[in-house]
């Protein structure tokens, strides 16, 4: 198996170099998506299925779509894109950092980390999957802040909209032929995606999965619906979208404050921990789906022919 | 150890200052009431404190800024001397300023910063530790700048820029000296002088030089006096109170504090710093007088005269003889009274007769007799004609120099007396003996301008004549020297 790992590592490095220093912006983005997929393979080899799922869904998937959309909008043909000249002083600095990091990575003998402690406490967290236990209970404060980071990204894009206000639907106008293949595909896939997303959310308690991975799949389904013209793109005008956007962190924070009543900030009583976590995760998945859809579609551009 | 009085004195000018900032331009009545009221109350409080101190009362207030950083207000004879001088003169100058400005613009701002300045000066007088002195010293710099640039024309803005260009590096030098000393000896209080044994002589000299440099800017020692003549662009009340009393005296007062309460006279002599300081003061005295002779305008001539006169005080501090110290301290008050009279008269000439240049003063004696008499009294006093105040301080300085064996100081005093005569007598000659130019005008119809000048002129006369009595500044100065610094 070591040969496979070495081969995988070499491939990852090669694709990463191609993405960063290779010729052409569109090629770089394609290489980046491939890099994401290879990386999730690496996570599978490292027995981290949750991370593999997150990496391929969010890292390769959504970020890839984001970048592809951007390359499309920047509308620069690839032909005249020169390969970037090597900037030697920075290269030297980077290689020094590389040397330091590799040296450190080799010197560190991986220990058990906090794995035994987590295992000991797992039963009291209300979920079986240790990663979800950490995310939703042990380090719940990090996850709440992380969902706020997502909201910040959306609000950050808000002033970039044409009129500085994001009242029209998100993203560029889409024209899919009504009877065409895309609209057909757009009607067929979403129900399945919905099923997979909810499954991922539910399975998160005991197997790899969880709010973020589920949310991403739902977001992808949402973006597809918008592209297929099945649904009008979400926009800040509709209060429903805004509430959906805010639901996740709001529920999470509400539970946090409620926790003050019986133990402490963000404390879930062990009896209802599983129920509480699942409610939070459902709200979180909804919010994440809406946020990621808005992020991928980007701020509204009125009148730009797609 | 009652705490209320010193704080009350401080507040008596702080509260009017802060209040008048918020007054509208039109409410002259309220503003005048505030300033005059503040001045009267302060004078009353200072007199009350004088009487109490005479019966042996003592005052000390400590406001902790940081554990080592105490704002200590402590009353001793020296601080009382300087405080009573500034209280009296502030009242007179406020009256003068109200008449001088009438209804010109930006008066709320003016009187606000004016009272803030006096608050800083009294705080400085009462400061009981080096750091408290520095805090008020800097507040004085900051509150004087808006007064210097009050007219907001290019000339006064340039003067303001020069003033800060000198004052801020000066404050840096002073701060370095303070922190350098305190980092070795711990916080320095004027009550118990720090034991300087821990500091090696070389850095002790360095600290002393930095002290003199920092304070010298305000005391207008020669190389550092550049800002003073330019500051004459400020309106008359500002140059009268600030550049004759508050700011300049603060520098001299600081040097006296440092020489006596921080280093102690013996250490200064042992380190061999007494003579160089005396030389610096003498150079300033002569240089100031020489430059004064070349000035065309009244106020710039008076400014250079201030530069030289203030150094008498520093000379008194530098010379080791007790009489010199008494002479120097007495001169602190004498010079204040005489110089403010001259500035008042210069202001009246400018305001009433539009006479800024000296050659415009021909025949003013006839048209403005009272002002001219006051001016003459002040001028003669400055020259040091017996029995005027100037003569008393110069005599004591001379005797002190003899006691300390510094005979060359006598020559300096004599030379400066001649130079004073050289730049004051021509003015007197023009006032009384030259015929008035035909278009000359001028009247003394505004009593509120003239009365303060008369009072200060008479005071400077009385201080000279009744010098022997214990109540006079001279008597007071000898009390200070006897009680505090028996060398």
């Amino acid at each position, binding site marked *: 198996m070591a040969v496979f*790992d*070495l081969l995988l*590592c070499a491939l*990852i*490095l090669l694709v*990463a*170099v191609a*993405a*960063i220093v290779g010729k052409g*912006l569109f090629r*770089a*983005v394609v290489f*980046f998506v491939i*890099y*994401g997929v290879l990386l999730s393979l690496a996570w599978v080899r*490292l*027995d*981290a299925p*949750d*991370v593999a799922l*997150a990496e391929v869904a*969010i*890292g390769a998937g959504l*970020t890839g779509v984001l*970048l592809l*959309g*951007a390359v499309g*909008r*920047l509308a620069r043909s690839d032909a005249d*894109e020169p390969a*970037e000249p*090597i*900037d030697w002083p920075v290269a030297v*600095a*980077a290689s020094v*950092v*590389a040397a330091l*990091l*590799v040296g450190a*990575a*080799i010197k560190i003998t*991986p220990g058990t*980390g*906090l*794995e035994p402690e*987590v295992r000991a406490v797992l039963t009291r967290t209300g979920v079986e999957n240790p*990663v979800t236990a*950490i*995310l939703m209970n042990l380090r719940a404060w*990090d996850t709440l802040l*992380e969902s706020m*980071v*997502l909201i*910040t*990204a959306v609000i950050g*894009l808000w002033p970039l909209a044409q009129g500085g206000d994001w009242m029209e639907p998100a993203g560029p106008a889409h024209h899919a032929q009504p009877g065409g293949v895309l609209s057909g595909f757009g009607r067929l896939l979403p129900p399945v995606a919905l099923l997979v997303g909810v499954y991922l959310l539910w399975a998160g308690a005991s197997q790899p999965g*969880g709010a*973020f991975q589920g949310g991403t799949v739902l977001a992808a389904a949402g973006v597809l619906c918008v592209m297929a013209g099945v649904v009008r793109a979400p926009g800040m005008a509709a209060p429903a979208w805004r509430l959906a956007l805010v639901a996740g962190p709001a529920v999470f924070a509400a539970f946090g404050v409620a926790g003050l009543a019986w133990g402490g900030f963000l404390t879930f009583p062990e009896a209802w921990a599983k129920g509480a976590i699942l409610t939070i995760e459902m709200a979180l998945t909804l919010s994440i789906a809406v946020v*990621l859809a808005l992020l*991928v579609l980007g701020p509204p551009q009125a009148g730009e022919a797609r | 150890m009652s705490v209320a009085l010193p704080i009350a004195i401080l507040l008596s000018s702080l509260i009017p200052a802060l209040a008048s900032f918020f007054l509208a331009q039109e409410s002259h009545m309220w503003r005048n009431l505030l300033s005059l009221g503040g001045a009267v109350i302060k004078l009353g409080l200072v007199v009350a404190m004088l009487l109490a101190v005479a019966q042996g009362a003592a005052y000390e207030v400590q406001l902790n800024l940081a554990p080592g950083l105490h704002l200590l207000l402590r009353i001793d004879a020296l601080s009382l001397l300087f405080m009573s001088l500034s209280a009296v003169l502030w009242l007179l100058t406020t009256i003068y300023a109200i008449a001088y400005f009438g209804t010109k613009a930006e008066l709320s701002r003016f009187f606000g910063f004016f009272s803030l300045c006096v608050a800083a000066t009294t705080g400085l007088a009462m400061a009981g530790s080096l750091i408290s002195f520095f805090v008020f010293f800097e507040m004085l710099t900051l509150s004087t700048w808006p007064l210097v640039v009050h007219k907001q024309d290019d000339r006064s803005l340039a003067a303001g820029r020069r003033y800060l260009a000198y004052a801020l590096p000066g404050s840096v030098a002073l701060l370095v000296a303070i922190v350098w000393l305190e980092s070795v000896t711990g916080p320095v209080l004027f009550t118990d002088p720090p034991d300087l044994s821990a500091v090696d002589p070389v850095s002790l000299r360095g600290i002393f030089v930095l002290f003199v440099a920092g304070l010298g800017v305000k005391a207008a020692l020669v190389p550092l006096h550049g800002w003073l003549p330019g500051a004459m662009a400020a309106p008359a009340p500002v140059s009268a109170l600030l550049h004759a009393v508050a700011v300049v005296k603060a520098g001299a007062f600081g040097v006296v504090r440092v020489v006596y309460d921080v280093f102690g006279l013996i250490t200064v002599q042992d380190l061999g710093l007494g003579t160089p300081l005396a030389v610096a003061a003498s150079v300033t005295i002569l240089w100031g007088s020489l430059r004064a002779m070349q000035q065309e305008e009244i106020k710039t001539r008076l400014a250079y005269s201030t530069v030289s006169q203030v150094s008498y005080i520093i000379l008194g501090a530098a010379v080791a003889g007790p009489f010199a110290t008494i002479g120097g301290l007495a001169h602190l008050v004498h010079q204040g009274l005489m110089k403010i009279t001259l500035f008042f008269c210069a202001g009246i000439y400018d305001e009433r007769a539009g006479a800024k240049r000296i050659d415009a003063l021909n025949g003013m004696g006839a048209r403005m007799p009272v002002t001219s008499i006051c001016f003459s009294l002040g001028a003669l006093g400055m020259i040091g004609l017996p029995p005027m105040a100037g003569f008393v301080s110069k005599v004591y300085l001379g005797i002190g120099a003899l006691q300390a064996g510094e005979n060359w100081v006598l020559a300096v005093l004599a030379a400066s007396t001649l130079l004073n005569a050289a730049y004051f007598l021509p003015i007197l000659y023009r006032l009384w003996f030259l015929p008035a130019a035909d278009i000359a005008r001028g009247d003394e119809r505004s009593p509120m301008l003239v009365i303060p000048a008369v009072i200060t002129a008479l005071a400077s006369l009385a201080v000279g004549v009744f010098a022997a009595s214990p109540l006079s500044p001279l008597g007071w100065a000898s009390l200070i020297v006897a009680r505090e610094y028996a060398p």
Partner: protein
Amino acid sequence: MTPFAVTGALLVALGLYGLIAGRALLRRIIAFNVMGSGVFLMLGALGWHEGRADPVPQALIITGIVVALSGSALAVGLVVALARATGRQHLRDDVG
């Protein structure tokens, strides 16, 4: 699993190079993501011990990936807005 840790370290350096020396803004965003995933790979690989992966780094990495996405989304939004407003695709020529 040191090979993955070493790869992570090299990816960090590669990403750092791209982030600083990149001319086209989108390329710098890609470099940012590569550097981020490099750090996560290093963190994850060093947490792997005899067949069992330490769950704490996994949770941190999932949080990190989502944060990296938000960063990239904001960056892409800004780049597109800048390109549409000024037609410029890089920050190199002006001061900085």
